[in-house]
């Protein structure tokens, strides 16, 4: 059945390709014509005849007599003077349908260098002991690479009857033969093989020592896979000994932990203190995989006695287990002599720590090197637990200096909104780090409740940077809180006529809303006698989320005599005109046309050309071409025209893409 399945898998694609059509009834008369054309086949030529023959084989599988004739014809071909490529094809077919009848022909061919590989390939796949016997018989008659190939085929067949011969060959003075025999015994994995491998392993020396150990180990794996775990366990325990090659010990540790974690524990524990890092890391890893608390306990016991690299591994494994019983180990390891261990401990506390870890982590983040600082900061953000945020707020209030700054940073990153008041309390701190992080936290955490406080902060800021920051924070809070909370801000704005810096900072906050009163105030400020206030209102209106201020900005760009303010108004107009909209491109071009007349400087012309290119249509193109004569922006005009023309070929007169 396996062979039939294989045949179907091979033939299905060919059939689907339409190269070969299956026929319901096949006859023996079809065999010879096909084989005649196959006999001259060379690699690279058409494979139609080969595919047709394979289809013939498939169609004939239910006709025993016809299959016998096919087998016989193939055997004739492999003995003929057909090309090597044709014979390879025939051997492959024989590997699928061959029977005992093929064995007498194929067996002697295994001894011929030109046919040994393919003959053995076919023979190894023919079911029944006749083929097995042929392989065993030929084993005794062969040498060198032919013998090694046969050993491989016997291993592939897991031929227990070959075990005695293979045991003999495993002691061969020819090393490749001995290695192949060892590998075959491991694959066959019967009791005599196991016993033989045990003996061979105990007396192997030199280069064969590792091969014998590997074979013994692989044999144990086979027993374990078949469910004979006691046998496997015995071998693993034997191979974990310090005198074994390190990688064999690692594999034995793996097998032991897999087969019987409980019994593995006392064996794995000494391996934790191995001088070989590979063995030690394997022991750490497999102890970490043992269910229950025993593995964790063993890792904790061994922790002080192992080197820094091992300690880092242990901490990583314990953190992955998420077993909070090891938290104190992490807290202690934060003071380890090794920086790598300290960083691993800080990182692990992010998973295993709780509110009691906050001060440890914040202290490390404030006073350690880069690796530890990064680990501590990430852990402060990751810390879980229902009381962690409340504890963080309390810790912010009771700490100072860089530790306080780190806690504020953590609160901002965690989104601990309950820390907003504590951040407000810290905003006047004389430590610049605390002040900066408090402002950052306010921007992230403050809500509607803090709006009056923020307005006050804008009003009482000690310098322009602080006022600007406070204005930005207020703007962010306004955006989060919605227009309903605008009352105190508008009231403060109206009272700020005599305090231009405060007024400008509040404009930033007003620009974050869509409130009609706020828009009216900002539009009104465009007519203020103070250039500072006009600039602030232009910038605020430029950030408006709708095109409502377009007429105001255009009017200002036309009438403003102060060049910087005229430029700012024009930029604002272009930005708002370029906001995504459902306007047809021609309408957008019409909206942007006045900007072409108002743009005096190359910088503004380039900005306009960039915006126009987003609206491919004839009207935009006309504006761009009118600007192309200006040498300062000719290249940009050409680029915009090229881009638009390409887009217009795809979506003529469409909307902005």
């Amino acid at each position, binding site marked *: 059945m396996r062979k039939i399945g294989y045949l179907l898998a091979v033939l299905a694609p060919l059939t689907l390709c339409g190269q070969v059509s299956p026929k319901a009834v096949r006859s023996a008369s079809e065999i010879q014509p096909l084989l005649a054309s196959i006999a001259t086949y060379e690699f690279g030529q058409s494979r139609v005849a080969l595919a047709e023959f394979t289809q013939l084989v498939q169609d004939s599988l239910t006709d025993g007599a016809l299959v016998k004739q096919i087998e016989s014809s193939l055997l004739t071909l492999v003995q003929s003077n057909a090309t090597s490529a044709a014979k390879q094809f025939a051997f492959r077919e024989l590997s699928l349908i061959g029977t005992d009848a093929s064995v007498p022909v194929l067996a002697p061919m295994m001894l011929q260098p030109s046919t040994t590989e393919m003959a053995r390939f076919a023979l190894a796949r023919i079911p029944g002991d006749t083929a097995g016997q042929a392989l065993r018989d030929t084993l005794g008659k062969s040498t060198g690479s032919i013998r090694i190939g046969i050993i491989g085929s016997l291993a592939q067949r897991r031929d227990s009857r070959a075990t005695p011969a293979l045991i003999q060959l495993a002691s061969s003075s020819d090393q490749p033969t001995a290695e192949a025999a060892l590998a075959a015994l491991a694959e066959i994995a019967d009791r005599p093989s196991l016993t033989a491998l045990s003996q061979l392993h105990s007396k192997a020396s030199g280069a064969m020592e590792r091969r014998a150990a590997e074979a013994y180990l692989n044999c144990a794996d086979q027993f374990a896979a078949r469910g004979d775990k006691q046998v496997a366990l015995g071998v693993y325990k034997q191979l974990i000994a310090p005198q074994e090659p390190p990688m064999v010990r690692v594999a034995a540790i793996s097998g032991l932990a897999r087969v019987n974690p409980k019994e593995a524990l006392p064996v794995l524990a000494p391996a934790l203190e191995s001088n070989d890092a590979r063995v030690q890391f394997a022991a750490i890893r497999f102890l970490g995989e043992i269910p229950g608390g025993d593995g964790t306990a063993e890792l904790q016991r061994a922790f002080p006695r192992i080197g820094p690299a091992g300690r880092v591994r242990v901490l990583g494994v314990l953190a992955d287990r998420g077993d909070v019983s090891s938290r104190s180990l992490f807290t202690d390891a934060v003071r380890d002599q090794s920086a790598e261990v300290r960083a691993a401990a800080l990182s692990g506390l992010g998973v295993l720590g709780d509110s009691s870890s906050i001060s440890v982590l914040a202290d490390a983040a404030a006073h350690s090197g880069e690796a530890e600082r990064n680990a501590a*900061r990430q852990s402060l953000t990751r810390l879980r637990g229902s009381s962690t945020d409340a504890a963080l707020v309390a810790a912010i209030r009771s700490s100072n200096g860089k530790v306080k700054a780190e806690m504020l940073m953590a609160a901002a*990153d965690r989104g601990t909104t309950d820390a907003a008041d504590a951040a407000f309390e810290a905003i006047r701190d004389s430590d610049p780090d605390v002040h900066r992080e408090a402002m950052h936290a306010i921007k992230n955490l403050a809500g509607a409740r803090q709006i009056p406080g923020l307005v006050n902060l804008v009003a009482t800021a000690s310098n322009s940077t602080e006022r600007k920051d406070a204005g930005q924070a207020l703007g962010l809070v306004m955006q989060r809180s919605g227009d309903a909370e605008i009352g105190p801000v508008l009231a403060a704005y109206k009272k700020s006529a005599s305090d231009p810096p405060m007024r400008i900072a509040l404009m930033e906050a007003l620009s974050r809303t869509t409130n009609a009163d706020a828009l009216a105030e900002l539009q009104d400020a465009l007519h203020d006698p103070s250039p500072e206030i006009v600039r602030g209102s232009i910038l605020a209106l430029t950030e408006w989320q709708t095109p409502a201020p377009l007429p105001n900005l255009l009017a200002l760009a036309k009438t403003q005599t102060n060049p910087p303010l005229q430029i700012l108004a024009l930029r604002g107009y272009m930005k708002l005109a370029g906001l995504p909209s459902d306007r047809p491109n021609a309408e957008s071009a019409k909206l942007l046309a006045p900007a072409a007349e108002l743009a005096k400087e190359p910088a503004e012309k380039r900005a306009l050309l960039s915006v126009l290119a987003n609206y491919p249509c004839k009207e935009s193109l006309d504006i761009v071409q009118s600007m192309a004569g200006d040498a300062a922006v000719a290249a940009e005009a050409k680029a915009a025209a090229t881009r638009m023309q390409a887009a217009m070929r795809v979506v003529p007169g469409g909307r902005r893409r």
Partner: protein
Amino acid sequence: MSPRAWFPLVLILGAAAAQTLKLEPLPIALPKPLFEGTPEPVNVPNLEKPLRKARPPFLAPAGTTNIALHKPVTASDRDPVTGSLEMITDGIKTGVDGAFVELKPGVQTVVMDLEAPHTIYAILVWHYLKEARAYKGVVVQTGDDPDFITNVRTLFNNDTDNDCGFGIGTDKRYVETAEGKLIDAKGVVARYLRLASDGSNRTQASHYVEVEVFGRPL
């Protein structure tokens, strides 16, 4: 005074001048490489060939430091998709999730206020560390005013189509690595720095891990 009498004075002045011009490698602390997953080839036009070795040290007058650390940053996108604008100058350049800012898709600019005019020797930009990618329309300019109206100087521009609206540039696009992109500012004096970008070959969004400005106060 005879020429012989001038000689010691010339020596002293020469030594003082040499001391002033003493050049040292920039104190650059590179983040750890952070590429994740199978790298995808960066097939974009006008791409700089990779150096395939560490960047040579960039020499600047002794005492040059990162003058952008913790300086205020504003951006055309006031509400980044992830992160906050402070991250661009916070000195944290691990590049891991949560340690970079992502701006909305399309052309975006960020402006850094150095709070006083400085002599700027180099600008080092890390847009993204987690994969090899090339950002589009990278423009770096200095200005004397926050609105970039007067004395605007372009230090780098690889916007070959004027998509950002700051003119067509001829610099090459480059692949982001942990080394960052170092731009020679040639000792320009400025207070404000503007950086633009228009997404990358991987996404329309722009990112910043960190921007360092190496210079000295006047």
